[in-house]
């Protein structure tokens, strides 16, 4: 053995081993203080939230918070506790199905032809076989699942319209200057929009009832999330703004 490996080979081998060993141990030493360069951070970390209306927005947020916690939440709890889950799911499916025109138009305006076609197909199946959208037989077709929910805000973004400042809308909650008109237009396209001229007719009573059911159905989904953000936040307004803007930017990027 001594004749095969001489002393200098030993030294070289030990040196190279130690070098390799130390490179493995100390390769990340610069990260010990957990500071990463901006390129190594995920890029959205540095996004600046434009909020020139912050002082007004914070007041609206306080009003909304009072409204959500003191009025919406107890009503929603009564709805959830006294309505069977199957009925609540049927309501939810029905209202999601009714929003088909917005999803179709939003896809079409972004030249997403395949998605427009799939949305139409889904609407056709759920409205007929699924009895007015109460059931969702379209779930059985994998290609009809997971179609991204497109809205007019995404259309405006794809046309290059800037996001604009953040706006806290009374009752409706977080929005931006670009998303707010999109929501108003979407409301006009909605099948069950309440037209103030028709309040005296019997039909409008049904429409108002449907609107209430829609709000309850939406709140069942949204309020628990809102409450959990609020509970674990140092500054719930900033948390809500950041969460909304992050979510929107991801939806638009898709």
């Amino acid at each position, binding site marked *: 053995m001594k004749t095969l490996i001489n002393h200098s080979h030993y030294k070289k081998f030990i040196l190279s081993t130690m070098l390799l060993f130390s490179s493995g141990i100390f390769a990340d030493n610069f990260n010990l203080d957990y500071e990463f360069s901006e390129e190594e951070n995920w890029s959205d*970390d540095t996004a600046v939230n434009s909020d020139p209306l912050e002082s007004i927005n914070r007041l609206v947020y306080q009003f909304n918070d009072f409204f959500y*916690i003191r009025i919406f939440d107890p009503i929603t709890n009564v709805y959830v506790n006294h309505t069977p889950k199957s009925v609540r799911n049927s309501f939810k499916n029905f209202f999601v199905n009714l929003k088909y025109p917005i999803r179709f138009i939003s896809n079409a305006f972004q030249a997403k032809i395949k998605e427009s076609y799939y949305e139409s197909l889904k609407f056709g199946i759920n409205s007929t076989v699924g009895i007015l959208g109460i059931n969702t037989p379209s779930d059985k077709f994998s290609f009809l699942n997971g179609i991204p929910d497109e809205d007019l805000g995404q259309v405006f973004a794809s046309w290059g319209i800037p996001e604009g400042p953040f706006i806290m809308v009374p009752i409706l909650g977080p929005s931006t200057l670009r998303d707010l008109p999109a929501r108003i237009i979407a409301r006009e396209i909605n099948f069950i929009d309440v037209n103030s001229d028709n309040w005296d007719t019997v039909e409008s009573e049904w429409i108002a009832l449907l609107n209430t059911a829609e709000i309850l159905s939406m709140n069942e989904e949204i309020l628990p999330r809102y409450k959990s953000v609020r509970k674990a936040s140092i500054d719930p307004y900033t*948390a809500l703004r950041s969460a909304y803007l992050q979510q929107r930017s991801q939806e638009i990027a898709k």
Partner: protein
Amino acid sequence: MNILKLSFLAFFFCLSNNLFATIDPSIQLKETSENVLNILYSNSQDTEKEIIEYLSKEYNLDIIIRRTLGRNWNKIEEGHRAKIVKLIKQLVLLAYLDGMSGKSKPEIEFSNTRYISSKRAEVPTTLYIDNKPIVLVYRLGLVQGKWEILDIVIENISIVITYRKQFDAFFTNNSSKDLVKKLETLLTDENLDQSLPL
């Protein structure tokens, strides 16, 4: 002869250290998530404490906390740093566990790990809480040869970014002493979600 043996031992130790870094981070995450859920859905008295202790063994949680504070770290008085890290750890865990809680124990589906660079990876998962799917992405970084959690993104909302924005806003008018007080209030006030803001 002994030197030769030692050299080989050192060589293999070094090799195993580098190999450890190439192990898919989702393997450890899977095991950890399962164990966290087991603790969460056990009838334990102090679930939160148990989970923090368990997670601290598996991952260096100080990293994610330091990232939530970002540049605000320098605004915190040295005497308050350890306490603030501890309190934020509890708060972030509260947010994380709140997102994972359901009436029944959630199912977790792990997708393939996405490697962003040699030191960055994302593990996308889908949580089925009461049959509702929630997309949760773990962002990981290789720190000292070990995959550590840098961020958790729940339904496109990053915990690090959301908290960092709040700390940025908080430190414009407040001190680290105020932060300690605020965090303590948040963690002790059981009726906080029912308190009136007006």
